[in-house]
């Protein structure tokens, strides 16, 4: 299934992906990561793997968008 893998320790919790996702697949979590931020989490069945979150995210490696099952 389409989904977004979050490298939690690389997230600065800017929220841009949360706002960008047309399907509202992302939200900020409550756990605090190594950088001291409440990193984003992915929790949804709706993801279309459009990549909007990936492109608005200013960090190179925080989000990886997966298409299909593998």
């Amino acid at each position, binding site marked *: 299934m389409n989904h977004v893998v979050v490298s939690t320790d690389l997230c600065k919790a800017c929220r841009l992906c949360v706002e960008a996702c047309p399907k509202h697949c992302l939200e900020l979590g409550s756990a605090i990561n190594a950088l001291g931020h409440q990193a984003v989490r992915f929790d949804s069945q709706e993801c279309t*793997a459009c990549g909007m979150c990936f*492109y608005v995210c200013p960090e*190179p*490696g925080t989000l990886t968008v*997966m*298409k299909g099952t593998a």
Partner: protein
Amino acid sequence: MVKHAKPKGFYDVFERKSQDFPAGETTHYCPGCGHGTVHKLIAEALVDMGLQDRTIFLSPVGCAVFGYYYFDTGNIQCAHGRAPAVGTGVARSLDDAVVISYQGDGDLAGIGTAEIVHAANRNENMAVFFVNNAIYGMTGGQMAPTTLLGQSTTTSPLGRKSEREGGPIHMAEVMSALEGPIYIERCTLSSPAGVMKTRKAVRKALTNQSEKRGFSFVEILSPCPVGWKMTPVQSRSWMASSMESVFPVKRFRDEEAAPKGNGRLPFLDDGALRDLVGAVANEVPTKVSTLSQDLGVKIAGFGGQGVMSAGILLANAAIHEGLHTTWLPSYGPEMRGGKANASVVLSSDAVGSPVVDVPQALLAMNGPSLDAFENHVVPGGLVMVNSSLISRKVERRDVRVFEAPVSDLAAEAGFLKGANIVMLALFALESGVIGIQTLKEIIPKSMKNKDLVEINLRLVDVAEEFHGRE
């Protein structure tokens, strides 16, 4: 299947010099900063387009100063505002390079205004990504040339006011006033759609660059949440509501341009170079003279007395004799009528420095020249004095002095302007450094105005007669 992942245009791990920021996988940018997004778009495009190994990424001074921590490409970190000048050098010396000049608004529109305007005007082969966040981010949010009217910054706490600080500078519009650039577009990161349009513009500029079509300028309106004292999400709405009405987001120019050359001059061999600069000695030297030591000659007078052309004649005569030589002109602030002197060095070997601080010979065409240089002549040196204009005697007792009224001699022959030739011919005769015959051969070749050849040759005869009488 991976659809979108960290582009390979980035290093896997970001090594850093600073102890405070150990190597890691995050950037040094603040949360929500636009620089990271633009970096990502560029890194992705370089890999997709197969340009990574050809790329020289020029990072600015500003928050993006550490571009070389991130981009797995060639990297140069440039002095503040000077990236377009560095890029000019790179583009002109490396034919295959993809040159990216990445600059902030303080860097490009403030301290580097001259560099960007002239690189654009020359249509230099480079892609410029101008990240405009309307502020000096790195130094703590000071007013930039791009700061909006009314916007408060640490140095405009009451808000920018045009009467006080002028208005925001519109760089894409400034670029549009120039004929050079082939592609100019302003984009914005205020929304996901804006980011995707920026992605297209980045690729367009890089396509132009990989095909060497000329100068591309992409201005990217970009948030600085920390400097603006907003959250990243607020900063995006402020861009849409305030920044974009001041800086219209649009394509200003997109020209179909053919690939342009690298701007280098053609290779010129020694002969072609001599022809080009009008040097005369473009044949094999007639003989090979040697000098026991290098000889520095200072020819000095006021502008219009022909001290420069006498120097060139001397240097050309030296080449004709198989010597090495240099000629170095020095003018006063006024090109004509002021003080002028020429330094000529003659040597049996390559000349180390063209500067003559302590001349072996001084050819003084007027009083001020004798006053200025008499004391610099080496002991045992030769001082030649134009006694038509210099009434005083040489004071030094440790130099050889030769006086001749060269202005009068030239005037009597009907050509006062040829006093320099009389002086030079007398120097040849008195010093023996160059043959008088050499001088006679050089004059017809070096005179641009052929009507003057005859009179100048006659002045050499006048000098010979005078020297014979002395």
